[in-house]
């Protein structure tokens, strides 16, 4: 399958990319291309112009700075997978990246693209919701910061204006006593999640939960932040009863649709089980296990 015809531009600078986007209402940004190119082949997308960011090396980086982990939008999944910093300090992110598609796709696919595409079945959205991340949007007037819980406005829709490009993701650097985990059920390698749960926890001095973040993948029209479940566990000891109560609330926050991956009931039950497992693993890692 060959995509419909389009024009193609390789801007040399981010400013040039933003200007091109502003001038062309039918333009799309090409990042890793592993969602966009298949959609173009299927005629689900037919942009008149692709603006390729792959030559902007300045958008691919991973660094800790001022209390944040800053991820350039063009950072590949494989780069997260091969980063010692991510493996050691950001286990939730490390878990997530390894569950995305397959190794060949991860060599091309980008973190920024995974978020900006805003497919509720994508994996990074739930993880970024659990972390309480921010994204940086760069437009003609400069940068603005969007909290991740205000970013996903609908299926495949985000708070980005047409002339804005997602350029950076910021994850709060976890304090000591933090841990996270991503638990996903997929029918086979490379499939989207039947359901998945991201959990991030910080434990206080007394062993109770100071921070709780829980995000859900592919069980609604957008990625879901399970706020009631988070609130129920915050300030509490992460014992079995409290984890189960939070997981129950997470499953109630899910709004899955029955499809060939499973019934609504099954997916809701799956969210509960995955939430228990993700929270337990997050606590274990927070305790240094």
């Amino acid at each position, binding site marked *: 399958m*060959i995509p419909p015809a*389009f*024009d*193609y531009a390789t801007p040399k600078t981010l400013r040039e990319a933003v200007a091109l986007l502003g001038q062309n209402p039918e333009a799309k940004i090409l990042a890793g291309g592993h969602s966009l190119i298949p959609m173009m082949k299927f005629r689900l997308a037919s942009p008149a112009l692709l603006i390729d960011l792959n030559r902007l090396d300045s958008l691919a980086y991973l660094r800790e700075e001022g209390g944040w982990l800053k991820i350039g939008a063009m950072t590949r999944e*494989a780069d997260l997978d091969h980063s010692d910093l991510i493996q050691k300090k950001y286990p939730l992110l490390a878990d997530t990246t390894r569950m995305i598609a397959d190794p*060949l796709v991860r060599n091309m696919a980008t973190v920024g693209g995974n978020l900006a595409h805003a497919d509720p079945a994508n994996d990074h959205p739930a993880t970024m919701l659990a972390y309480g991340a921010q994204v940086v949007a760069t437009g003609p007037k400069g940068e603005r910061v969007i909290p991740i819980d205000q970013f996903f406005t609908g299926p495949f829709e985000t708070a980005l204006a047409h002339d804005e490009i997602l350029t950076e993701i910021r994850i709060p650097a976890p304090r000591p006593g933090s841990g996270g985990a991503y638990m996903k059920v997929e029918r086979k*390698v490379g499939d989207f999640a039947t359901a998945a749960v991201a959990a991030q926890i910080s434990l206080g001095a007394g062993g109770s939960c100071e921070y709780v973040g829980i995000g859900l993948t592919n069980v609604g029209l957008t990625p879901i932040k399970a706020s009631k479940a988070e609130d129920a566990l915050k300030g509490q000891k992460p014992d079995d009863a409290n984890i189960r109560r939070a997981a129950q609330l997470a499953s109630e926050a899910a709004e899955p649709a029955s499809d060939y991956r499973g019934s609504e009931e099954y997916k809701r039950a799956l969210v509960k089980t995955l939430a228990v497992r993700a929270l337990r693993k997050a606590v274990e890692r927070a305790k240094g296990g």
Partner: protein
Amino acid sequence: MSTHHVKVTVNGAVKEADVEARTLLVHFLRETLGMTGTHIGCDTTSCGACAILLNGRAAKSCTVLAVQADGGEVMTVEGLAQNGKLHPIQEGFMEKHGLQCGFCTPGMMLSAVALLKQNPNPTEDEIRWGLSGNLCRCTGYMNIVKAVQYAAEKMKTQ
């Protein structure tokens, strides 16, 4: 619709052509350059039959535009053997019966080469994980794993 002049180093040789922006890398290789060793399987980024190395990393060439490879380096199955001598991974697939119909084999071998470059001593699990983006409908993977293990051993002594 735009046409672009691309210059790609394929298996060490510089190749140039004018292509439409929508030309996929796999079509550039097979049709523009006539190098049909790279196969088209699912055409939907699932099966890995079209796997090549793009600037040293394994990628599915059905989901990369030829214009994206401009100025870059591509390695295909045709580039594995050197001076008439098979690459250890090719030898491994032959010795360990790592193929039946052979359709997935070029992509399988390129993924394996990328894996062994990153991890010269993979465990069986790591091999299966490393090849999880490549599907084989004949072998059940047992002999493919053995072929990669054979190549890993062989490459250590070279």
